[in-house]
């Protein structure tokens, strides 16, 4: 319980820290947003008027309190360029990005964990080497290139085997669920294969650690086959670690997701954020960065709590530590 409270306090402190960092980075670093927005060669008076209108002339602390106060009330501000509220902008984009991430993660688990188990079970050195090489290469493919190869292989029109639409998202979005899902398959595959390769390496190494600590031998001494022991005992023991790893790769995945969204012309959070940065849409970028960062902090929080729930040894270790102290 103490751990949970500590962790929650850390989460709140981190949220505050992130909001300060995001705010400060966008104000203090060189490059005046107003002059960029006004465009090249625009008169100084126009830049000044724009600064006034955006409230950039106010003291930084007032600007920050204004923005952070809005965040607390759930008001993420208004995009300067489009005039829409940032909340509605992000909600529309998340409807694409979120399913994409979940689908990608699912594919990664379906590829990574069985391959990791197979690599642990492999006996011949040739098979082991083959799994090792697959893991190495899979993790070294640039997301952009992987996506392109998939387009070349499987897209309608140009691909060798025309199965999936090569780019875009249906106009009516999830109104046509089949078509929408279909257009997410290739992007999710390109993200999933790369994450799957690193998941495979982690699965193998944590299964290796567990085997080295004698749990597998014990299970086999109790009459399990090696295969059974690795899958039933080994995987169960590896679960807390794997959950942590999946949580961390979740955060790393977003880079790939941004590239993939751009490549497949999906109007999701990643490609939207890149567009907003390109347009120097200050308020939108600021709030979107904060939203994304807090999302990842929340994922970190959930993973830590989950890890704790899955591995009771950690909690009892705390009790021992408290008694000793």
């Amino acid at each position, binding site marked *: 319980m103490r751990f949970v409270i500590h962790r929650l306090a*850390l989460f709140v402190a981190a949220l505050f820290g992130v909001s300060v960092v995001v705010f400060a980075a966008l104000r203090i670093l*060189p*490059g005046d947003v107003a002059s960029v927005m006004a465009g090249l060669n625009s008169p100084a008076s126009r830049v000044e008027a724009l600064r006034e209108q955006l409230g950039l002339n106010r003291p930084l602390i007032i600007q920050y309190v204004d923005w952070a106060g809005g965040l607390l009330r759930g008001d993420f501000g208004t995009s300067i360029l489009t005039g829409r509220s940032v909340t509605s902008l992000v909600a529309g984009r998340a409807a694409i990005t979120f399913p994409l991430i979940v689908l990608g993660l699912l594919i990664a688990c379906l590829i990574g964990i069985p391959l990791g188990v197979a690599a642990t079970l492999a006996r011949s050195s040739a098979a082991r080497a083959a799994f090792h090489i697959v893991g*190495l290469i899979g993790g070294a493919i640039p997301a952009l290139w992987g996506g*392109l190869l998939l387009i070349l292989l499987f897209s309608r029109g140009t691909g060798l085997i025309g199965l999936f639409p090569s780019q875009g998202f249906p106009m009516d979005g999830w109104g046509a669920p089949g078509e929408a899902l279909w257009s997410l398959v290739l992007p999710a595959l390109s993200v999933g294969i790369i994450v799957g390769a690193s998941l495979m390496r982690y699965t193998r190494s944590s299964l290796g650690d567990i085997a080295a600590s004698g749990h597998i031998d014990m299970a086999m001494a109790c009459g399990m086959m090696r295969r059974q022991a690795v899958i039933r005992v080994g995987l169960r023991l590896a679960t807390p670690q794997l959950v942590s790893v999946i949580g961390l790769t979740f955060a790393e995945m977003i880079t790939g997701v941004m590239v993939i969204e*751009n490549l497949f012309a999906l109007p999701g959070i990643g490609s939207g954020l890149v567009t907003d940065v390109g347009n120097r849409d200050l308020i939108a970028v600021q709030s979107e960065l904060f939203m994304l960062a807090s999302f990842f902090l929340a994922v970190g929080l959930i993973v830590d709590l989950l890890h704790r729930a899955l591995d009771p040894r950690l909690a009892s270790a705390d009790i021992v530590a408290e008694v000793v102290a």
Partner: protein
Amino acid sequence: MMVVLRAMWRRAEGRFALVVLGLWLIVAGVSLFWTPRPLLETDGYHVWATPSAAHWLGTDGTGADVFSWLMAGSRTNLLIVVLTVLVAAVFGLLLVAAMVARRATVAVVSVVIVDALISIPTVLLALMLAVPLGASVVVIVVACGFGYGLNLARVARPAALLAARSSYVESALSNGASGWWIFVRHIVPNIVPVLLVQLSLSAGTSVLAESGLTYLGIGVPSGVPSWGHSLATSVKFINVYPLTVLWPGLIVTVVVVALNVFGDVLRDAIDPLTNPALRERSGR
């Protein structure tokens, strides 16, 4: 030095890594004063040419030579990798020093900060920096160096903590050694194996990050040759000219594999436990 290299060469993986990285250095060096074609020479009559004797890997949409651009790109990528690894190493070591500091407040606060920041993806930092700076190498180096430094600190902390609580550190303290002296002399050598593996992973990831960020328009500015740039320019025409997109992606993949393997092999080669040649030498 030779002993270490020989031990690395003895393994197939090590040979692969050494050959690829060696070639990379050579090509980057050569590209400084020679490329098969000048970078800015464009041949409007031979746009998207297939590989031939004149253009080894063909030409791109402006008729520029793909091979020459990839050669020149290798030095941009080399620069990015070296700078990123340096930033990550310095930042990571400073964090490790703070995390094992004897003053409890410094240690606790730094651990909390690292734990909080580590779940924020590198690309968000890069986007934040790109708002004022636009596309530039600085964005990649700072964002990646910062993110990988955090990772490094988190992974190296257990080994550093173990060393910090060892009896030789205690004895050095009782002899009046300063904190920094102990960190450099006693703690850093203990985390070198972790450091090598993490830094070589970071080097590989920074090559991948370069291609991603450049494609997103916040990495290497347009007009500067880099592998990410070559990849990004050919993307738009993938449906028409699929061949040109193969090369830069292939190079990136091979180099990243080599960098990842390099750290592993180097760690084993400098460890007297796994490299008997080093034991013989110190015994003499």
